[in-house]
């Protein structure tokens, strides 16, 4: 091949060569010699290992090449730093250099500048390694989270079990207390004077409060454990609400509050657990009365909900309202709004949490509207029993043209 063409090929491929004698002294250089060294003339007569630091310590390798025992030695991706701090990537290949008789006379040392590809490969390796590190970190974090979750679940189960046991143990002595108080109040063991009656009625009210608290605690633990079972029945909600209002009327009237019921006519029955529906509406009614001052107004509404297939119950009061900062936590366990503290209303902060859980177990929804100082309205929805299947189109009659 024409040496000029060979030179062109070597320049284009950025390949330099150096040929040594059997003593590893450089006798010839060529190709893209700037890859090899800064001043090609200074290379001649140099020892190859002195010129190529990567070959220091590779004496046996070079000896094997000179002996004809090693046909090729390659060092791919050798990094070199330039004086201005750039990184060059070089591929180094050492081959036996044979004379015309075919004997190994020295070493043919080839160096190719592969920096362009090297920089790309380095970036790829960098991205891959960083992703691997992230993946490992995520794996460790996931394991830690899983362990933390398992511990939290264990602690939660322990707490629920404790609360359940405590509530049962607290409830047990209440039965005889309530029973004997009722016996005394009924006069079964003799007449009572006014003072005795008054004291016993205080005890009776306190027992009822404690009973409600323990029942709520037990409900919370059952809800958390998924052990609440609903006995779903077709229920006339209008009749149910009338029963509840009759039960609460004495408490409401004791505060000179008015209690009205407005129910739409011809409403379909709801599908709900009657006892739990009473608990839900009773709790809302109790709250409305608690947080409304004497002489206030409470209104209960019953109508079809906007969402098809549901009935909507509303309990509106003109009481103290709920501050904005309390609204997002209203349904949290043990949360008591500022208004509860200010009005001195009793309660452990479990009622709305239980109410929401029970409503959602029915497939319904609970929400509220409120204005501080003006009052609040709570809404709950219950599914309608026997909801007819949806028609493909409207049921409006169309006249024939």
């Amino acid at each position: 091949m024409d040496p000029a063409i060979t030179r062109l090929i070597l320049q284009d491929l950025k390949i330099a060569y150096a040929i040594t004698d059997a003593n590893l002294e450089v006798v010839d250089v060529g190709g893209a010699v700037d890859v090899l060294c800064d001043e090609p003339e200074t290379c001649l007569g140099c020892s190859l290992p002195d010129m190529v630091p990567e070959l220091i310590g590779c004496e046996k390798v070079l000896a094997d090449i000179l002996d004809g025992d090693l046909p090729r030695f390659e060092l791919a991706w050798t990094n070199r730093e330039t004086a201005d701090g750039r990184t060059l990537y070089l591929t180094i290949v050492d081959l036996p250099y044979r004379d015309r008789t075919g004997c190994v006379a020295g070493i043919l040392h080839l160096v190719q500048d592969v920096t362009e590809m090297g920089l790309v490969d380095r970036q790829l390796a960098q991205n891959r390694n960083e992703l691997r590190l992230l993946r490992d970190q995520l794996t460790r974090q996931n394991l830690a989270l899983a362990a933390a979750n398992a511990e939290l679940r264990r602690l939660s189960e322990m707490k629920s079990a404790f609360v359940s046991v405590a509530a049962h143990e607290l409830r047990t002595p209440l039965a005889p207390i309530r029973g004997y108080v009722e016996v005394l109040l009924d006069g079964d063991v003799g007449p009572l004077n006014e003072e005795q009656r008054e004291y016993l009625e205080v005890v009776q009210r306190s027992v009822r409060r404690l009973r409600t608290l323990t029942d709520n605690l037990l409900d919370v633990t059952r809800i958390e454990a998924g052990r609440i079972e609903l006995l779903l029945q077709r229920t006339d909600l209008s009749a149910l609400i009338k029963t509840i209002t009759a039960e609460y009327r004495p408490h409401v009237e004791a505060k000179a509050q008015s209690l009205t019921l407005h129910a739409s006519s011809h409403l379909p029955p709801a599908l709900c657990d009657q006892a739990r529906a009473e608990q839900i509406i009773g709790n809302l009614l109790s709250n409305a009365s608690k947080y409304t001052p004497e002489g206030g107004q409470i209104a209960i509404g019953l109508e079809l909900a906007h969402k098809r297939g549901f009935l909507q119950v509303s309990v509106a009061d003109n009481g103290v309202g709920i501050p904005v900062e309390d609204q997002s936590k209203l349904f949290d366990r043990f949360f008591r709004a500022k208004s509860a503290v200010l009005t001195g209303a009793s309660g452990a902060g479990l009622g709305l949490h239980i109410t929401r859980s029970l409503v959602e177990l029915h497939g319904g929804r609970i929400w509220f509207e409120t204005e501080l100082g003006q009052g609040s309205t709570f809404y709950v929805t219950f599914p309608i029993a026997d909801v007819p299947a949806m028609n493909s189109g409207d049921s409006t009659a169309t006249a024939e043209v």
Partner: protein
Amino acid sequence: MQKAISKKICLLGDFAVGKTSLMRRFVYDLFSDKYISTIGVKVSRKTVVVAGTDGVVELTMMIWDLGGSEEFDRVRASYLRGAAGAVLVCDLTRSDTLACLRTYAGELRSVSPDARLVLAANKCDLADRQQLTPAQVEAVAVGFGAPYYITSAKTGDQVEALFRHLARLLVV
């Protein structure tokens, strides 16, 4: 008269364990928190004076910092040829980087069976993230018949001691 010799040593270990950082700390007394992957091999040199069996020796350590990514597994054998010694590096904050040192040691021994080994358990400055204990590192080092050091390229802790120990093994 001081004898002057050159020996090739390799830094081996998984990616991002701190091989380049250990080399830079030993050779240039520099450290950077920025992680830049090494591809291929970078050769640096440092000369130390150590006591040999026949007197003081001026040893030039040609330190081969090998890329730890598995993409370069197939070219690693050529890098290891002629190595007189190696530093096996693991990362104390990544437990899987210790077990794979057996593979690297095996590769080295197949190409340079007489190479001397020292083990570096790096990043001891990251105390709150450690996944490996000194006992675990020691167990692996004993398996290699090699000394070990708990190092930090960031603070320089035990880095000089590590390389000097290897240097002494190379001149014996």
